[in-house]
Every structure is written in C-alpha cells, then in structure tokens.
C-alpha cells in the first residue's frame, strides 16, 4: 500500500473508510418476525391472522405496511388464500375462501404458511403452522341444584372425529365488553374422552329478556388446534326488561330525557315574544300598504 503523503490524506482515508463502514452497516437488512394464528369462530368463516414485528432491544415493535402472502398447503398460485398488508398494529387478516374447499377437506392436518419478500429494510420471512381440524360441543348438565357445563373437544383424524385429550380450554359467559369465567378456574383441561365438566357459579347474572346467557368455550393459541370457539345459549340468567320509562322523564342535563316544563315555558315565551313582534311588524307593513292604496 502506498503511504499517504501527509496527515490530511490519512485523515481523509480514515473518514472515507468510516463512512463506507457506516453505510455498509446501514445496508444490513433487519430480521422480520412473522406470526400466523388460526381462528375458527363458532359457525362463522375461519380466518388467519398475520402478525409482523421486529425485535429491537428486547422489545417487539409492530411493523405496518408489510405485504405478505398467505397459503394453504404448498406455496403456489392455486393455494394462495390472499395477500395482506399489515396495519398500524402490525396485523393483517385473511378469511379462508370457499375455492380452497377441496384442499380444506382433504388435508389433515391443515398446513398454512405466510411469506414476505425482502424489501429495503427487511429480509424475506416465512412462517408455517400445522392445524388439526377440531370442533367444540357444549352441553349442560344439571345435578340437583348445581348447574354444570360439559365441553367436548373432537379432532379430525383420518376422516374420523375422535376425542381430543389434554386440551386446555377457557369456559366463560359472553358479556358486552369481555368474557366472564363461569367458575373460579382460569382454564380447564379435557380428559381422555375429550370432555371436561365445569361448574357454573354465576347465579343471578343478568341475561336478556328471557334470561338467556351465551356460554362460550375456546382454545387460545393452541399449537395444534389454533383458536377454536364454541357457543351455546342457556337460560341460566336473570331476565332483564328494557326500561323505557325514562323516555317520559324530564331533565335539563340528561340527553335521553325530555325538556323540563319550565324550560319549555321559558323558551316558548321568548320565541312567541320575538315572533309575535315580527307578526306585529308584518301587520304594520300591511297597514302601510292599505294606507297607500286608500290615499290614491
């Protein structure tokens, strides 16, 4: 290597190396972490949720505007379930379309994958999951005065529905803003017959007009089954009647109530006073007109 002529040349070379080093460091693409979750709501269309994030200093940062392709089985055009773009929370959703019915019926387990192509920031990424098709059946058992909920989980094995054992479930009552567990346990696990029985300890819970409550049983991010939901309506709640009587109440501040009489009276007086004056002025105008006609 030729020796630099003076210290300025040396400084320039060092700066150049430092800059190219920084640039090279910048050009290293980041790793994108992809998660794929399967959801099978009760009697609804199943869907897959994609989650894209990056790990930065022990924190996961959601990545928006990431384009991804979701497949069933092998990655091919015919097996493409859909393309998504992640939102601000790094999530995207694909409903399983009807045209993959053949693959859906034949495959056991169901293999899903999500892929992203490399872009300016991230390397390409891919994640796969294998889901065994499962169904949840909810039944009720009443022993003396104790109400119990029986949940049976079945998995599809070689075209046959067999009991799924050791499956962790949450059993709860569906409420407006969340789910209320039916008893003290956080989760329940199925036995060798695929059944779990849980005691219902939420007596006197307000239901609808007929006292109906919605029982739900679900798996949560289960590795083999994904997120499966089952629902059943039971008349175990307290019937509630919608109180419409307040429509006839009167109050100044409550937006659902009618105006108080004093306000109606006061406002009517002002409106009648002002419009009465206007009517008087219009009569005066007609009087001017009459005077003009009579003076001809």
């Amino acid at each position, binding site marked *: 290597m030729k020796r630099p002529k003076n210290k300025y040349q040396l400084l320039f070379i060092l700066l150049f190396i430092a800059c190219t080093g920084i640039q090279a460091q910048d050009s290293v693409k980041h790793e994108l972490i992809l998660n794929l979750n399967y959801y099978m709501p009760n009697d609804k269309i199943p869907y897959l949720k994609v989650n894209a994030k990056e790990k930065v200093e022990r924190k996961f940062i959601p990545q928006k505007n990431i384009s991804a392709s979701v497949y069933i089985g092998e990655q091919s055009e015919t097996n493409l379930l859909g393309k998504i773009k992640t939102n601000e929370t790094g999530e995207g959703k694909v409903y399983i379309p009807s045209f993959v019915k053949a693959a859906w019926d034949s495959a056991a387990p169901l293999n899903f994958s999500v892929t992203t192509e490399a872009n300016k920031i991230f390397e390409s990424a891919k994640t796969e999951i294998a889901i065994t098709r499962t169904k949840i059946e909810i039944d009720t058992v009443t022993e003396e005065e104790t109400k119990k909920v029986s949940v049976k989980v079945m998995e599809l094995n070689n075209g046959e529905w067999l009991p799924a054992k050791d499956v962790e479930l949450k059993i709860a009552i569906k409420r407006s803003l969340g789910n209320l567990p039916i008893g003290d346990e956080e989760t329940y696990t199925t036995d060798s017959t695929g059944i779990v029985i849980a005691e219902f300890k939420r007596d006197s819970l307000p239901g609808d007009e007929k006292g109906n409550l919605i029982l739900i049983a679900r798996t949560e991010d289960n590795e083999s089954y994904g997120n499966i939901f089952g629902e059943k309506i039971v008349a175990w709640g307290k019937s509630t009647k919608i109180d419409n009587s307040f429509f006839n109440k009167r109050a100044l501040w409550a937006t659902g109530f009618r105006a108080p009489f004093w*306000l109606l009276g006061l406002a009517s007086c002002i409106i009648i006073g*002002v*419009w009465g004056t*206007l009517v008087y*002025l219009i009569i*005066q105008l007609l*009087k001017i007109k009459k*005077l*003009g006609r009579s*003076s001809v």
Partner: protein
Amino acid sequence: MENQNILTAEKITRDLLPQQFGRRGKIWTGILILVCLIGAFAYYRQLRYGLAVTNMGDYVSWGIYISNFVFFVAISLVGSLITAIFRLGNVTWSTPLTRIAEIIAVSAILFASLIIIVDMGRPERLVNLFAHGRLQSPIIWDVVVISTYLIISLLLLYLPMLPDYKFMLENKEKLPKWMRKGYAFFGSFWKGTTEQKKISKKAIIILSIMIVPVAFCIHTVTSWLFATTYRPGWDSTNFGAYFVSGAFLVGAGGVVVAMYVFRKVYTLQQYITEKHFDRMGKAVVLLAFLYLYFNVNEYLVPAFKMKKPEEAHLTNLFVGEFALMFWFAVLVGMIIPILILIFPKGRKPLPMFIAGCMVVVGAWFKRYLIVTPTLLHPFLPMHDAQEKFKHYFPSWEEWAIAMGSLAGALLIITLFVRIFPIIPIHETIEEAHETAKK
C-alpha cells in the same frame, strides 16, 4: 357627507338608480352562475350517491360544509352592526353602507341555512328537526335563531327601501316588464304620507333593537354547537365572545370589499367617500384588535397548561399538519390588516380593499381550522380506523358545493344591485337637504 351640499335630488336619483350590467358585469354574473351550476351538479351527485362522495368519515363528520356554515353565519352579523348598532347610535355617516351590509347579511344567512341542509346528506330529514327536535339541543336553538334572523334581516332590508320604490317607478317606461311589475307589487303603495312614515320609522326602530340580541344569539349559539362538547379546541368558556368578535370583523371586512367594488364599478365616489373608508378602517382595526385579544385567550391559555388532550391539537396547529394554514389565518386575517389599517394612509380605498380581502379570506380559513383539526383529535385513540379517516381533505364535490354556495351568495348580491339601489336614495336626498340647510 362631503360633496353632498352640491348634489341635487335629480343627480342623486340619477346616480343611485340601478344600472344595467356592462360587459364586465355580465362576465362576472356568468362566472358566478357557472360556479353555482358546478356546485349544483356536485350536490346532485351527493344526493344520488350519498355522503360517500365526500371525504368526511367516522372522525371528521363536520368538514368544509360546516366551516362554510360558520363563515356565512359570521359574515351575516354585519347587518346588525351597521344597520342596527350604527343606526341606534345615531352614526349618520353609515347611511350609504346600510343596504350593502343588509344584503350581505341576507344572502349569507340564506346560504348558511342551505349549507346545513347540504351537510345533512338526507335533506328530507330536515322536517324531523321540527317534528322531534329536543329543546335542550343547541342545534334546535340554531334553527330557531337563524330563521328569526333571516326574517328580521329581510324586513330590515325591505322597510327602509320602501321610499326608494317611488324613484325606481319614476322611469318605469324604460324598465323591462318584469321589473316594472315587481316594483309595482312591492312598493307602489308607498305614498310618503305622514302616517306611513310614522309606522315605517317605528317598525325600523323596533327591528333595529330586536336584531341586536338575535344577532348576538345567532353566533353565540353557533359557537355553542362546538363549546357544549368536551373536545380539545372547542371546550372553552371563551367561545361565544370569540365567535361574535370574529364575526363582526369578517362582516366589516366584507362590507369594506363591497364598498370598494360598488364605488369603483358604479362610480359612487361622491357617495362612498374616502371619509367612509377612513371610518370603516378604524372600525375594522378596533374589531381586529378585539378578535386578536380573544385569539390570544383561546390559544395561549390552553397552550400554557398543555393538558394532554389539548397538546396534540395545539401542536398540530402551531407546528404540525395545520401550521401553515393557522399562521396564514392569524397573519393574513388579523395582524397584517391591523398593520395596514392602523395608519391613515392604509385607510385609503385601495389599501382598505386589500386589507378587507385579507380579513375575509383569513376568516374563511380560520373557520376551517376551528372545525376540522379538533375532529381529528378524539379523546379515545383511533382504534382500527382506516388510514384515510386519520386525515381530511375535501373531495371535489365538497369543494364544488362550498364554492358554489359562496358564488351563490355573491350572485344574490350582484342581482340585488342590478334591481335595487345599493345606496338608499331617499335617505341620501334627505341628508343632502339637511346639510344644505346647515
């Protein structure tokens, strides 16, 4: 009024009677009609396809239409300032300006009512406001007060004009048939008898007194549409006074612009003199200072506290997405007009016209800034909202309807000037006689 001591009744009548449009007048009217037609076509599209043609959404549900509504309500307030407050205060120099102010008020309040119907999306549902309206709601107050103000303004425009019909009918042979019939229907009964004058004078005084509280109500109630909510930027006890002061300013600015245009187009230099500009200039400066004072209260006090919900809103206005528009409205709508008009040389017709235009344009953007940015900062985070809901820029239909309504208001004023004298003839002759006697 300077120069009036040498003006004869014949000359005043000749000068002030409505004149036919020249070439420029026809082009101007044609442009206004064209803009109105484009607006009407956009409204047809909105009726056919619904409010989906606008860019309003879950968050910005009040966009350019409501900004325009607030602007119209504001500018209409000038009718009460010049016609009523000046009249009750015996400010005689304002005589040539009263009709200008009143027609601005009538056309603006008319289009304020129309633009509200446009904003509803389903115009046939307007009837529900009357059938099922709740008296506790500021929207009902607004409906009541706007309709009242419109009727008072119409009467205040019509009653002082009755003596002028005599002059308009003097040369009826030269008039087109429809104008002759119109003048005869609306004013041929005015004979100027003592009894007629007495009733008319009394009615005008009653209207002048009545319009002041109604005018204050109209804009205070409009401000309460916003201030009765808890939202950042609107949750303010200052809002009524802030709106009323801003309304007087934009109205006065509008009158200044109209004064200059009518003076120039109809050669009214002897009637709208430099003295009128000087005095209106002083009024505008006073009103601009007043509005600036309320602006300082409105923005500086919340900025000093920077409560969390206000922070995002104020930051967006001062240095964020709306900063350019905000500082434009402050500088062009208030500061620069004050700097122009505070000096006697700035109160000459041309600088006054420029300052008036600045006040009006600045005021329009100010109304946009009052309505839209707040809606983009709800208390709860925008969860699962589409990206397009997080920003707002009006669609071409919204622009067309808004511009069409502005053109419509200008068209009413333009057509009014074609049909009626824009400066009261009878009052000007009377004042000329009184000056001559002195």
